[in-house]
């Protein structure tokens, strides 16, 4: 017997959570796209999709976010700080790859200097992850040593039942327990078996790839030019990625008043690293693609002992020229280290 949440109780859950002061967020399909968005009713969830088009990142690190409002009057600067909208929230139906993405970026936003925009939202969010029972051709969590039921970054893990009528509940953190105590009356002890997990074939050997990337001689390999030939530098892969965290800081306004914003940026863009002098350390698209791969699988793990990729596959799934991390690492894994 294990504790289960049955699908027919989900609407009651949403109601109870909302009355307990949580806002409820989950995978939602709207118009031509899908994302994690706020819902009022369980019927608004679309729990059938492999994963939403947009990653969970934007709920913690929005595409654009005001940081300061400044006004300058009679030789005095007044600034008013924007803090992220406060409030507890439950993000229901998160995919394990998206949840892992959050835990991957925690050390980055926290080393020495802590980014409160990230951590305030992290501290107020309960991540209720549903293990995957289906995958598509682009999913690659297993190649990253993760799995369709990885618990990294999750507060609760739900395992779908075989009859597709609910989930087994695994409480992973105190925050998760607290959120589920609000719906304790709706949980039932049951002995229904869980559905088999999605089968995600391993597409490359990560260790082989990392060994190749760590060899300094390969930094200027011709491989980088060949593999990135068709990259148009649109930045979609970085924006859709749950772990890409690069940003820009820009002022919107004039000399007297305005807003300082933190905006998503992308290592795919030529201006990203361009000096005022005109010198650009990463002046070609191949240097920029190399940076993205090196950063994710060599530099980032060197600092934080975790790859900056959770295997969601969005970069490949939605690349307009059909590139992506999978193809690059597959090819690297066949090269001599």
């Amino acid at each position, binding site marked *: 017997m294990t504790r289960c949440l049955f699908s027919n109780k989900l609407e009651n859950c949403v109601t109870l959570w909302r009355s307990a002061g949580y806002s409820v967020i989950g995978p939602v399909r709207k118009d031509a796209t899908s994302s994690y968005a706020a819902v009022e009713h369980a019927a608004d969830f679309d729990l059938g999709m492999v994963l939403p088009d947009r990653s969970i990142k934007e709920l913690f690190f929005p595409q654009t976010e005001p*940081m*300061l409002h*400044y006004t*300058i009057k009679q*030789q*005095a*600067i007044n*600034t008013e*700080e924007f*803090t992220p909208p406060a409030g507890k929230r439950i993000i229901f139906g998160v995919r394990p790859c998206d949840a892992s993405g959050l*835990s991957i970026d*925690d050390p*980055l936003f*926290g*080393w*020495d*200097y*802590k*980014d*409160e925009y990230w*951590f*305030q939202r*992290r*501290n107020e969010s309960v991540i209720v992850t549903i293990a995957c029972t289906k995958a598509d051709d682009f999913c690659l969590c297993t190649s990253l040593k993760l799995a369709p039921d990885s618990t*990294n*970054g*999750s*507060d609760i893990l739900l395992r779908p039942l075989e009859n597709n009528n609910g989930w087994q509940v695994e409480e*992973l*953190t*105190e*925050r998760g327990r607290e959120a589920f105590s609000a719906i304790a009356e709706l949980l039932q002890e049951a002995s229904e078996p869980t559905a088999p997990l999605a089968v995600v074939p391993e597409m490359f050997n990560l260790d082989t790839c990392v060994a190749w990337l760590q060899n*300094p001689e390969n*930094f*200027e390999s011709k491989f980088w030019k060949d593999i990135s030939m068709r990259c148009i530098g649109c930045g979609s892969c970085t924006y859709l990625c749950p772990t890409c*965290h*690069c*940003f820009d*800081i*820009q*002022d919107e*306004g004039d000399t007297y008043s305005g807003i*300082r914003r*933190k905006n998503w*940026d992308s*290592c795919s863009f030529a201006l*990203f*690293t*361009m*000096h*005022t002098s005109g*010198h650009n*350390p*990463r002046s070609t698209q191949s*240097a920029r693609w190399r*940076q993205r791969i*090196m*950063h994710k699988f060599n*530099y980032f793990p*060197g600092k934080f002992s975790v790859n900056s990729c959770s295997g969601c596959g969005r970069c490949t799934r939605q690349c307009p020229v059909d590139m992506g991390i999978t193809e690059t690492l597959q090819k690297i894994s066949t090269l001599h280290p």
Partner: protein
Amino acid sequence: MTENIQSVQKNIYKPAVMKIVGRHDEAPGVKTMRLEFQNPADHEEFRQKYRTGMFGLYGVYGEGESTFCVASPETRTDYIECTFRQSGRVTSALANADIGDLITFRGPYGNRFPIETFHGKNLLFISGGIALPPTRSVIWSCLDQREKFGKVTIIYGARTVADLVYKHELDEWQERADVDLVLTVDPGGESPDWKNKVGFVPTVLEEAAPSPENCIAVICGPPIMIKFTLISLKKLGFDETNVYTTLENRMKCGVGKCGRCNVGSIYVCKEGPVFTAAEVSRMPAADL
């Protein structure tokens, strides 16, 4: 795991407000500003933290922030001095600001020149053009405790006589008996009354031929100068671990998050900007 999430602290992107209390034209397009903190707590934090070599983000609201070094030494922390060339949006706004105007500063960030490990050693400073400001911060940090160091040699070059920055301080160093100053301008950059050297910095360095014995070299300049100066230093017998330099890259956050200033795996904003030549030579040259 989520249970280890750090607690929220202060907003790391909020800059301190600084008042411009001094403004000096150094060379065509190059200005030095002296800035004073408006909030005593910000000032105290700076005093505690600042060591020579660190950098800051200087900003004008409405235009943005720009990264450059703190040009004043760690021995003088009543104020911050910065020297910059007017070339982009932020530096143009800074250049147009006047005494009494308010600008912003975030920092100090990054690592430092470990000058206490230079005690008892001879110091060789080599600098080119607009790269004297970071070197000048180290120079004064050492000259303000002159007795702790051996012989001090400064080799400084610019394209033309007009392009030399800190002209008043160059005069002061030239007059000091305890400082050897070698000034040079590129061929064609000399004025009719120029009495110093004419020639590129590496050539002048080889002529001066300072001894590598018990000597630390601090070099800063445009990439091409650094490249050839390193070759000359090697010829003179300097060990790469005794040669320090400072790198700069485009930055937005200054605190290791925005993802653009890395050279290979090294974040210039956190692991730098000060590196030994040995460290630089291990970086992928194609990423510099």
